């Protein structure tokens, strides 16, 4: 784990986190819903399961 608090960054672009894979990534092991919170929330309510969210950014 690495803390990426923006407040701790000293360089706008040099201190950053992993880049977004724009070429084909390896197959995900988990069935992620992509960028659709309402859909994921509705699924979680219907299935009575907690919702896990990976909130990331391409930087």
């Amino acid at each position, binding site marked *: *784990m*690495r*803390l*990426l*608090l*923006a*407040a*701790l960054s*000293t*360089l*706008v*672009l*040099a*201190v*950053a*986190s*992993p*880049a*977004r*894979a*724009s*070429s084909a*990534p*390896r*197959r*995900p*092991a*988990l*069935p*992620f*819903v*992509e*960028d*659709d*919170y309402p859909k*994921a*929330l509705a*699924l*979680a*309510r219907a*299935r009575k*399961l*907690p*919702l*896990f*969210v*990976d*909130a*990331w*950014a*391409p*930087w």
Partner: protein
Amino acid sequence: MRAEVFTDQRLRKQAGRFVWLSVDTEKAGNAGFLEKFPMDAWPTLFVIEPAEERAVLKWLGSADVNDLRRLLADGERAVRSTRASPADAALARADRENGAGRPAAAAPLYREALAKGGPRWAGRGRAVDALLLALGEAEDWQACAREGEAQLPPAARDASFANGAALALSCALSAPEDAPWRAAALERLEGLAQEALQVRSALPDDLAGLYEELVQAREARGDAPGARELARRWWAYLEAASGRAPTPEARAVFDSSRVSAALALGDPALALPALQGSEQALPGDYNPPARLAFLYRELGRQPEALAAAKRALARAYGPRKLKVYDLEASILAKLGDRAAERVALAEALAYGAALPGGQRGPREQKLLARMQARLEQPD
């Protein structure tokens, strides 16, 4: 995590325990999520109780497979409030406070969990890291550094220890330079961070980040030769780690550290070949050309810097595009082209004004205010 952790097939057994959502915080369509669940560190992992839409666990930073398994178990416990040991129950309460955006209130609950769990508690490493993160988020730098000094020495030398050492050192570095406790804390925490560099189970990019904290600590203590020597080791580590990376995106994980390490060595050109390689391998990603623009600017090669910034702008989206505009404007200023600089700043301000509310947080507002001030400066 997207390149390395979520692709790990050992996680397939976890699939039915949660509904899984991936949120690119730069996309305008996700602004509503950000309004409900504000964040200022990337990645941030949430476990959300769906009936009331409450974040019951919020984790700043990445996690390896083992960390993630632990987070998932703790998240389930925080949602369901089912049978739990006193320590795990206290940890769940702490996670719920932290998830609700109250890190200062969560910190004493994490301490309670640690006290109840004792030295052999399986959740100890995660709880120590969560405590340090909560204190860091609350900007209680001294308490964070002190907890690191108190909790880490007896801990197992595992990935949590490495993460905790980096967090505590970050906190000490973030404190005001004239804080009377800072220098001694930096020295003690530097020792722990040095130990953490030997942790084999730590994520490679975590170790790359740890080198960065250590170099900054040495610089803060006025040890320029020591900082330079460590930066050389950092660079060698990055070369080896990226050489082992199986895919271009896994190699690009080290790009930001390469830039920082090259700067620490006083040789920005050192990072150019890797960044050029990343741009070629990841043509849709704005990061490599943005980093190249930054390096060229530092090297005084402004025409190349400007061209790279324009390539980055063509690919960037979301709030981070503001940073690329800011970079472009700074390059134009170095070129002495005030008219073009003003155009770039005006474009950035219009772009920022059009961002949805959830994507225009305090950081973006601050950046926009700075660009507005530069635009209004007399020629």
